[in-house]
């Protein structure tokens, strides 16, 4: 297999991996599939208030999961890799 075709295969696999990561996150995260990538996420905090009740509140913190992609990032990345794969494959066939 020529270098171009090998490169095309790598790019295609990476594109599939990126979309696979998006699907995996959508299936395993409680909020499901995300169209937009959240740079911050809500975490629950528990505290005892003036009435002696344990109360839960939500606060926004920086998203610790760097692989938590929304389709707004996964799509263009996979698309670019896919286009590169096609380009390398066509180049490889012509060469």
């Amino acid at each position: 297999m020529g270098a171009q075709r090998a490169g095309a295969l790598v790019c295609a696999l990476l594109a599939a991996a990126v979309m696979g990561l998006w699907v995996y996150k959508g299936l395993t995260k409680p909020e499901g599939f995300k169209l937009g990538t959240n740079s911050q996420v809500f975490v629950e905090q528990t505290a005892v208030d003036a009435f002696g009740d344990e109360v839960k509140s939500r606060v926004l913190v920086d998203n610790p999961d760097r692989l938590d992609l929304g389709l707004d990032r996964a799509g263009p990345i996979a698309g670019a890799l896919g286009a590169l794969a096609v380009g390398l494959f066509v180049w490889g066939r012509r060469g």
Partner: protein
Amino acid sequence: MSRQSLLSAALSAALSATLLPAAALAAPGSFAFTGTADFVSDAPLEKINGQANGGGAVTLDLADLTTLSGTIVMPVRTMKTGNAQRDDHLYGSDWLEADKCPDVKLELKGAKVESVETKGDITVAKLVVNGSFGLHCQSKDLAIPVTLKAKAGQAKVSASFSVSLADFKVAGKAGVVGEKVGNSIAVTVNLSGAQGG
């Protein structure tokens, strides 16, 4: 002063000290509340969680909770969903138009008391509060179930209700509402406050 007079004066002072807080609590008072409104948009394509912050002054009379009144304001620009671009869209001309309609407002105009319980010095009341909910420069009357807890000049309230975007003429971009953004948004409000604010 005789011993009897002294004893009488001391007894009166002690009685006043125990009765006065209860009297103060029962009298109508203005409470300054602050807190959060958590909202959830659950649409077929995406579930969006968000939160807004704000507060306001509420007049409460624990002896007559039906007279509850006040205004709670949450600026639109405090609404955060964890995605800065989505937040900017939310404030923009297709959605809540924060420049024209900067605040989400709840005006409280009385309540129907469902139940009141007193445990020690804590009063717990379940109410249905009548209010006018303002969003996107539109307003609609709502009856909101609320749980109120109060003691010694402190109070907290929690409430859950739904807001239909169509009622407030929030159309969004074509095809988004119903698919990416829920037609109806679930809201949970938690506020705490102190008297005299």
